[in-house]
């Protein structure tokens, strides 16, 4: 089907017109369905296949190179194998979709491909490139080599006509009729992508055109014959490959490196199969003939062996298959060590396999980087040699027992290697692709991703014993259900010396569980304390660890547990900050394989009995290691109010306020869930109701004590899963810098943090998919509602909540500023910046609903220090700023709504 309007492309103007026309055709083509495309692909492949012999004849006639019968194979291969491999491959529209994850990949064509076709494979490469372009809904404009333009254009035309007859847009394939460098450069500059096969000059030009280019490089394939090789198979494979199309395939063997033990056998086999070994003077003659100034003589490319010999003045029989030069040097100055594009082969003798590998590496360096290398050996016994060869050679194809010409192009000697006439050589060859080029390189893949929320879970100890007097029952279980025999108790010296551990040890004695007690835990437990405890554990070999006391004892016991079970761990690694506990770099060791962990709190605050956290201080460096991982979660918690009754007032107040901030921060955390919300609110209701009573009559009010004990554990479960926020970040550092009790430090910061978080237009909000917009104000209002604090709108509710908290703090004797705790102003200001940076970097900061700037943390610290003013945001645009706009009323309403904290739609 002749396109009558088509004018010859021989000038810049003509080419520009063609590019515009082809682009238009491609635009149409890009709307085709997979079914339409597949039909076109099939018709085009069929037509190319049918024309394989005339095209092969044309190619040899026009270029004067190669062998007709071999070119027939190449054309046949380009049509049939490429079609077969890609016929069922999806290249249009949705390629894959995962609804659960909300991700979809969509294939789009690239556009107009500039296809540069070499003289060595002028028809088969044209068939290959046009077919894969059609399969991917791309258009192609071919720049043929002037030496092979007729046959290349003929091949393109056959594919075009068949494609158009099958429904492809007119002119979807076009070409330059009179190629010259100016037109080729223009085409490469104007195309959307360049598919460049040919000499390195052309490939370099493609890469410097400024357009994405898939260029491929030259080869200098070495073939190693190991002593374990099947010599007959090896030699005949090489002959088969090297003589193919008179050696013009870029993957063709250029040298054979033979293990000395089989050298004579290899030589005899080559000789017996019609190859000619050049004599010393003949080698020199051939050398000077095939190379001129280090470049390959054009006259010998693709010529039969006898002709090349003749040119060199060497007489060999006409039927000679290959001219073999036995040479020693692999240096670039040795002509035989280069690509020869003809049936001329270098042969090297290797002392051993390592020598062979070295030679192969050097030959690849002589212009064959990234292409192909081959090895012949016994695959059943010599896998290690394959591995070494593969790891050493900088080539993108490593062929084993395979003729490289036919092997590298794929799907003939191995059926998983993609069939291709364009072989990528990777960065070693200066290419963008290291594979055999195929349809995937001609597609733009769009990825459509829907917003998804983070998976979350709820984790808690497998058992939490509650109610006054539950301890003995719980300990019974250790014996009768779990069959535990040796318990290691970790506590502090006060509790130990005052007999608080006695109920536990007595019960263990009754049960016949051996036990020992480590009672040297001090507040802010140190690494050396944990090491000492772990040492004792290793000696005692417990199957149960019982942590008894406040946060310090429980944290120390957790660390001892880690050191006991995994003495090899590094605390720096374990303490590495993470953005998402499920994606952290460090994999925490598996815990619980040696000992079952039981936590019995004696104060109502820390929640450590149900949390995956522990803090340990390196007493030498002063560095605190906050560890967090669900592996650190206790197996059993025992909340028995009997152990809480004697806590002093100060501790009761500080611990109670600590629990309060746990619940508050967990409720507004980025990671808060329905599961943690209920726990947080319940804990807050209980703390507001019972903390004053527990504070006033702690020694006798069992109900208040029990409610507080439960509230602290419930708050612990909330923040064990929702995590905390910037109040704890700042309290951690404030406590560490000035030895303030943790609960007090939190109490001093909480108002600032609530006001900071409640901003409806924060400088930066926290990053978490489920946190859609700043809404901590509403969350605080929800707490106020749960506490029945009243208020007309969210702002009022917020103020009521803050007042209630401040009242409670005052009620239990907590002062209202850092300064009042006797911290020196000068020192505070001097160390402030350091404290700010550390607080910013605290693990708790990441889940705060508002992402804090360091300047903001600084301001909050200063406010809390003086206790005179509170956090306010930088000024934001308000209704005054939009006065005079047409929409004034509507916009004003929006500002108004924001100011009163009206709930969003």
């Amino acid at each position: 089907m002749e396109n009558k309007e088509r004018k010859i492309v021989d000038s810049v103007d003509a080419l520009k017109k063609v590019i515009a026309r082809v682009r238009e055709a491609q635009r149409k083509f890009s709307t085709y369905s997979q079914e339409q495309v597949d039909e076109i692909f099939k018709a085009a492949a069929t037509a190319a296949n049918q024309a394989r012999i005339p095209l092969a004849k044309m190619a040899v006639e026009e270029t004067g190179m190669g062998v007709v019968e071999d070119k027939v194979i190449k054309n046949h291969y380009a049509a049939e194998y490429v079609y077969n491999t890609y016929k069922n491959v999806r290249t249009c529209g949705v390629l894959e979709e995962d609804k659960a994850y909300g991700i979809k990949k969509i294939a789009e064509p690239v556009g107009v491909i500039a296809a540069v076709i070499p003289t060595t494979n002028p028809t088969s490469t044209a068939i290959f490139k046009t077919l894969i372009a059609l399969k991917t809904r791309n258009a192609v404009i071919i720049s043929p080599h002037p030496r092979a333009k007729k046959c290349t254009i003929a091949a393109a035309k056959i594919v075009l006509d068949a494609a158009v007859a099958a429904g492809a847009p007119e002119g979807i394939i076009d070409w330059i009729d009179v190629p010259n460098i100016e037109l080729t450069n223009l085409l490469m500059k104007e195309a959307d992508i360049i598919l460049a096969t040919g000499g390195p000059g052309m490939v370099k030009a493609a890469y410097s055109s400024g357009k994405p280019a898939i260029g491929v490089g030259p080869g200098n394939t070495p073939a190693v014959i190991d002593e374990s090789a099947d010599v007959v198979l090896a030699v005949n494979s090489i002959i088969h490959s090297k003589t193919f199309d008179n050696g013009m395939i870029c993957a063709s063997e250029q040298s054979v490196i033979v293990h000395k033990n089989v050298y004579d056998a290899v030589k005899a086999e080559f000789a017996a199969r019609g190859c000619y070994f050049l004599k010393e003077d003949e080698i020199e003659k051939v050398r000077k003939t095939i190379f001129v100034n280090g470049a390959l003589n054009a006259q010998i490319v693709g010529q039969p062996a006898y002709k090349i010999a003749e040119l060199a003045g060497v007489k060999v029989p006409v039927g000679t298959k290959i001219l073999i030069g036995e040479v020693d040097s692999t240096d670039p100055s040795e002509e035989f060590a280069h690509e020869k594009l003809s049936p001329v082969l270098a042969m090297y003798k290797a002392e051993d396999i390592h020598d062979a590998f070295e030679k192969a590496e050097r030959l690849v360096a002589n212009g064959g980087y990234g292409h192909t290398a081959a090895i012949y050996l016994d695959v059943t016994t010599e896998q290690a040699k394959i591995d070494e060869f593969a790891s050493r050679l900088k080539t993108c194809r490593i062929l084993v027992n395979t003729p490289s010409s036919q092997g590298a192009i794929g799907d003939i000697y191995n059926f998983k290697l993609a069939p291709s006439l364009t072989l990528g050589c990777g960065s070693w060859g200066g290419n963008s692709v290291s594979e055999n080029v195929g349809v995937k390189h001609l597609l733009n893949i769009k990825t459509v991703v829907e917003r998804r929320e983070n998976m979350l879970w709820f984790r808690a100890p497998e058992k939490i014993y509650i109610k006054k007097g539950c301890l003995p029952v719980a300990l019974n279980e250790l014996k009768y259900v779990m069959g535990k025999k040796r318990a290691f108790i970790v506590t502090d010296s006060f509790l130990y010396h005052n007999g608080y551990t006695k109920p536990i040890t007595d019960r263990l004695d009754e049960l016949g569980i051996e036990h020992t007690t480590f009672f040297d835990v001090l507040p802010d437990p140190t690494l050396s304390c944990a090491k000492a405890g772990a040492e004792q554990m290793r000696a005692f070999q417990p199957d149960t660890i019982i942590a008894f006391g406040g946060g310090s004892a429980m944290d120390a016991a957790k660390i001892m547990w880690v050191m006991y079970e995994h003495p090899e761990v590094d605390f720096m690694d374990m303490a590495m900050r993470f953005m998402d506990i499920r994606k952290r770099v460090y994999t925490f060791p598996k815990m619980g394989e040696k000992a079952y962990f039981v936590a019995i709190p004696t104060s109502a605050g820390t929640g450590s009995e149900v949390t995956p956290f522990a803090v340990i201080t390196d007493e030498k460096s002063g560095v605190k290691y906050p560890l967090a991982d669900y592996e650190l979660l206790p197996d059993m918690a025992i909340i028995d109010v009997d152990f809480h009754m004697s806590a002093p007032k100060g501790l009761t107040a500080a611990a109670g306020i600590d629990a309060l901030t746990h619940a508050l921060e967990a409720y507004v955390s980025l990671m808060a869930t329905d599961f943690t919300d209920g726990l947080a609110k319940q804990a807050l209701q209980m703390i507001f109701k019972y903390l004053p009573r527990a504070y006033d009559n702690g020694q006798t009010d069992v109900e208040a004590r029990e409610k507080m004990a439960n509230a602290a554990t419930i708050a612990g479960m909330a923040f064990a899963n929702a995590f905390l926020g910037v109040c704890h970040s700042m309290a951690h550092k404030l406590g560490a810098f000035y030895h303030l009790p943790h609960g007090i430090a939190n109490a001093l910061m909480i108002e600032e943090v609530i006001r900071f978080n409640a901003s409806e237009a924060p400088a930066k909000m926290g990053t978490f998919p489920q946190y859609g917009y700043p809404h901590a104000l509403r969350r605080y209002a929800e707490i106020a509602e749960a506490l029945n604090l009243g208020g007309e709108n969210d702002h009022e509710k917020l103020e009521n909540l803050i007042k209630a908290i401040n009242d409670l703090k005052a009620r239990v004797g907590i002062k209202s500023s850092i300064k009042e705790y006797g911290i020196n102003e000068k020192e505070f200001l001097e160390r402030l910046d350091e404290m700010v940076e550390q607080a910013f970097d605290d693990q708790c900061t990441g889940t705060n609903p508002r992402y804090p700037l360091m300047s903001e943390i600084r301001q909050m610290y200063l406010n809390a220090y003086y206790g005179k003013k509170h956090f306010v945001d930088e000024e934001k645009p308000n209704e005054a700023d939009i006065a005079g706009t047409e929409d004034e009323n509507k916009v004003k309403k929006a500002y108004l709504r924001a100011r009163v904290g009206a709930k969003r739609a």
Partner: protein
Amino acid sequence: MNADRIIAVRNNKTVYRDGERVLKVFDETYSKADVLNEALNQARVEETGLNIPRILEVTVIDGNWTIVSQYIKGKTLARLMEENPDRKDEYLNLFVDLQLEMHSKVCPGLNKLKDKLSHKINETDLPATVRYDLQTRLEAMPKHNKVCHGDFNPSNIVITEDGTPYILDWAHATQGNASADAARTYLLFWLNGDIDGANKYLELFCAKSNTEKEYVQKWMPIVAASQLAKGNAKEREFLCSWINVVDYE
């Protein structure tokens, strides 16, 4: 004009000495633009600080465009090599050093070597296929901006009595890739029949400039083609053997 004597007669120009001055008189067939370009080249290169004869005047004498420049008294390196064959290595050494010194200069106003070579390739009567391959090869070569002489050979170097070397004849100067300039020098040795000198020169150039020999060799088909454009029939067969090579595929 008070020309003492004719120093040299070329195809379409005659060089006279006039005391301390040299007059290069071009005949009518010579393009005015080429004369002015040559003078401009030389003036520009003067500014790089290289030792070259200074342009004194560009004028028309009896209807012929003439470049007047400083006369450098001394012997050419070619003559010195001939007179003292035993010192040839020493002279070659000096020759290469001089060329490298020149390559170390930049001179932004000069024409681009690549443009010149491309133009020369198109001027040849080589088959389109061969020109296409040469253009592709040229296109892929790195483009630099070093001062290139274009005819750097021992007869264009004059050594004065105190041993100061001067580089003459800037008609072909361009800016571009030094290895192309070296490939051209190598070719000039060949054309002069001094194959041994050519090889020694190339070895020296590569060693001193830390250049791979293959890299200089890549330019040889291109410089051979540009020489072919001069149309010297005697050189044709030889040059074609250098040109008719292929890029690896």
